[in-house]
């Protein structure tokens, strides 16, 4: 269980609801790292905007190399998520 409360999709309103909807369109699901920021919708907006311009096909590296970097760094910093 997460260390702080998270607002589920069905209870989201306003900017948070928009962020969830945008994430659903681009990633296909509302992932836990998105709901993790739900107490601060503006933080969620700016960070997902940065992600969408940098990853998931936005880089010229391609998904395979993006995931290489992601998996290695996650293991090095011991982040199982």
């Amino acid at each position, binding site marked *: *269980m997460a260390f702080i*409360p998270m607002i589920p999709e069905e209870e989201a309103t306003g900017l948070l609801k928009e962020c969830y909807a945008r994430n659903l369109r681009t990633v296909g699901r509302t992932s836990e790292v998105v709901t*993790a920021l739900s107490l601060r919708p503006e933080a969620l907006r700016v960070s997902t905007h940065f992600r969408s311009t940098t990853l998931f096909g936005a*880089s*010229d590296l391609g998904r395979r190399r993006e995931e290489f*970097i992601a998996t290695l760094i996650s293991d090095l910093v*011991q982040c199982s*998520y």
Partner: protein
Amino acid sequence: MDRALLAYSEKITFLPERLTSGDLNALREVGYPEKQVIDIVLVAGYRHYITRIANGIGIEIGTDRVEESILAQYTYSPDSPTKKAAEIRELQGDGATLGQVISGTEPGLWVERPNSSGLGETLGREFQEWEKRIGFVPNWLRALSLHQESAAAAGDFARYCTFGGSPLGSPREHLIGYLVASLLRAPYFLGLHGSQLKEQGASGVLLKNVQGWRNAELSEQDQGILEFVEQLTLDSHRVTQEKVDRLVAAGLSESEVLDVVVLTSFFNCFCRVASALGVPLDPTSKSFFEEFKHAF
């Protein structure tokens, strides 16, 4: 090419202060064009943001998304030793002080960037926002100009996390940024946040040795915040519910705990990005270093 990519990812993770233009050249030499070199830095930087968010908030992934056998291989506990800690200490233990690391930084920006006439509308607008807010466009943002969409989004992200954009307020944002930059030995953000803290009246004791925060005159809340920031930066897998509860007991709301996690994660990303690209100091940082470099 993949091997070079992974070697770079490892170095930016553990030894960002040792990155040089030679590391970027190694990527270019195996065939990565200039824009992809910046992509690698940004993708790696983002991973240092999102892994701190996940570990700082305690997010877990279920077996509905990942095969159980894979999950078992990549499950860590707060008791797991920090990877490569001894090796890193040995490499860092070459006697170089933070001041020497800063003095020894190779000058100049290590990546290409378009001149001002090559700026698109979105990034041009973002630069104007920074001019309005602090009177200049930070060099780290200019350094990303070849990747205009990412640079504009990074600028938007930074306006939320710094200079009073977050609910934590400017002094605490700079305090967190200053400690993360010091832990990662990142001269660019050390200068940026140090100069701002100085302007806001931070004590000389704190400015000279922010890693000695336990001996500085700080409120109980600020001490708790810095303890959390230090752990999330260096040993993020060791953050537990108990550590979060300690911040709440010190008077922070759960939303403010999230702010601390977001800001620490942001600085873990962009301190590395700035060190990786060889971003030159902003003018406001130069006088700060002149005054404090002997203390570092």
